[in-house]
């Protein structure tokens, strides 16, 4: 295959796999916890963090990770019970984005001569094909680390997500878990910024997770499916970008993710319709369907 003969393509697939896996896993819980907005806010933070790093002339990734993880924890602290709330996020991320513009100005006035003019565009829209060998490896390992950490806390985190009070009564450290999760979201966001960019990473976080939740109602299967879908969509997007020369990978990846999500929604919608038609057809014989009901009715009568 000629695609794998290009090192940049191999690095992109390698790094992209780690990034996509982390995004899929983190996204699954973001969707379940109704915190997708947090992911969006953190992508803006990623922009600011990266530009701050550029403005001060340090490694871009240091700025990315420091900013996203710090703000993720800050959001958790400001929101109640380790869950960031909408008003807090809204305020924080407008200010952060303003800060990003400030760093952008600093950067362009001080360092525009350094020959790194496309850096801003890369931060916003990603540059997965520009990953170096070491960057790709780092991305892969960070992705593996995020997924491993999330799998480790998956069950108590799910408990805390669905049933916070009961989980807390059972001794699940609900608040700490909330913070750990937000830190993982921060790390995944920082990684994803390098691949699809600050503006588009939400597609990689929300779409595979949303698709997985449409396709299965078993939580751990859903988590695995979200990871698998994200990785598959990353590969498909990269392949598309390779064979269609004019197509930027950030676009093809998010386009594939969105298309798969749309297909899943249509599938469920049509399945629902078929089920509705079927139950309407059997409604003529209601005794067959309402097996579960008589129990309740009997109790009611006896009281």
């Amino acid at each position: 295959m000629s695609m794998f003969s290009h090192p940049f393509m191999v690095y992109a697939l390698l790094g992209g796999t780690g990034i996509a896996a982390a995004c899929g896993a983190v996204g699954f819980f973001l969707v379940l916890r109704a915190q997708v907005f947090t992911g969006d806010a953190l992508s803006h933070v990623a922009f600011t963090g990266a530009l701050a790093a550029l403005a001060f002339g340090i490694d871009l990734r240091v700025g990315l990770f420091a900013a996203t993880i710090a703000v993720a924890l800050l959001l958790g602290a400001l929101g109640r019970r380790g869950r960031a709330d909408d008003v807090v996020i809204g305020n924080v991320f407008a200010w952060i984005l303003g800060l990003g513009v400030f760093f952008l100005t600093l950067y362009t006035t001080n360092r525009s001569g350094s020959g790194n003019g496309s850096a801003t565009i890369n931060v916003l829209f990603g540059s997965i094909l520009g990953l170096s060998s070491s960057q790709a490896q780092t991305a892969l390992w960070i992705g593996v680390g995020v997924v491993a950490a999330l799998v480790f806390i998956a069950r108590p985190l799910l408990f805390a997500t669905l049933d916070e009070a009961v989980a807390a009564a059972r001794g699940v450290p609900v608040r700490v878990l909330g913070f750990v999760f937000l830190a993982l979201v921060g790390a995944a966001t920082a990684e994803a910024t390098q691949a699809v960019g600050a503006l588009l990473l939400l597609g990689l976080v929300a779409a595979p997770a949303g698709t997985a939740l449409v396709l299965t109602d078993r939580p751990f299967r859903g988590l695995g499916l979200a990871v698998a879908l994200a990785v598959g969509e990353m590969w498909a997007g990269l392949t598309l970008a390779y064979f269609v020369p004019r197509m930027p990978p950030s676009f093809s990846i998010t386009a594939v993710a969105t298309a798969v999500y749309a297909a899943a929604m249509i599938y469920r919608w049509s399945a629902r319709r078929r089920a509705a038609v079927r139950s309407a057809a059997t409604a003529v014989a209601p005794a067959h369907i309402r097996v579960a009901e008589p129990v309740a009715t009997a109790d009611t009568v006896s009281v």
Partner: protein
Amino acid sequence: MTAVDAVDAVNTDSEAAAALLDGESRVCNAGNEPVAVVELRGASASVAGRTLWGGVDLTVECGEFVAVLGPNGVGKSTLVKVLLGVLPAAAGEVRVLGHRPGTAGAQIGYLPQRRSFDASLRIRGIDVVRLGLDGDRWGIPLPGTRRFGGTKRREADARVREVIELVGASAYAHRAIGECSGGEQQRLLIAQALVRKPRLLVLDEPLDSLDLPNQASVAALIGRISRSEDVAVVMVAHDVNPILPYLDRVVYLADGGAASGTPEEVITTETLSKLFRTPVEVLRASDGRLVVVGGPEAPVMHSDRHAGALVGGDGRDADRRATDRRVTDGRASDRRAADRRPAGSEADDAR
């Protein structure tokens, strides 16, 4: 209702002795010491320096069904927190299963006051029940371990199935819980609270937001489980009527005070009037339902409650014990008490 007649009108003075006898004769979950599941002696609670209720004397034995009643905002949920060990009692003694609250762990099943699950939540009911069994464990259940920890896993599966059958939720346990009705969700959550075979089930307004038939059937379910599983139930309720036929004991909380005993002793015109220090009338409808009437409708003022906290203190225990029928007077001024109105059954009243 017949259930009301069935319970003898026990004299209050001999009630403690009766409870003691009961405790000796009954051994719950064979092998355990016959300690009371819940024991409160002159317990009171305060939040932010404000005394909510006080002088609660209560003994709950195995398999007993006890309701916690009282007006809105009196601190019924606070009593739940005290039992769970989340909040320490301000005064008095609290023992849960013979120990300090909060140390009983899996022996307590808890169902908090609840908003229902979001309709779009696509997690199966059976998974939610399963979380009650092992939700506090790290990692994820791996399908590969079936071969190794096979028996353990099969046992867990069987227990989940058993408890779902017990609450009659088998028909919809495999559906997404968001798509289940309020009553169905409540049954699944009761199954979740029961899955570890607790000896005490603490339920905070489980009938809230259910329609009348579902209130009746879930109440019947809880009553049945308390008997068949020999699990003591402490249930916060704003309306006593759906659960009245199944109740062994009630605790009526009032501002600063409390009354406890069998429903026949506590939910009476005399007892409640003394508790609330205002004329309150308990009426019995032809179908056996109780309606509590009395007191002006005026809402409780917050400033009043702070006044209560300032006046209130400890060292009234002697006084409290002297009062017959275990009714403890709030340290409330009459004017303040008059603002309060027992919320026993106004919901039914309105219907």
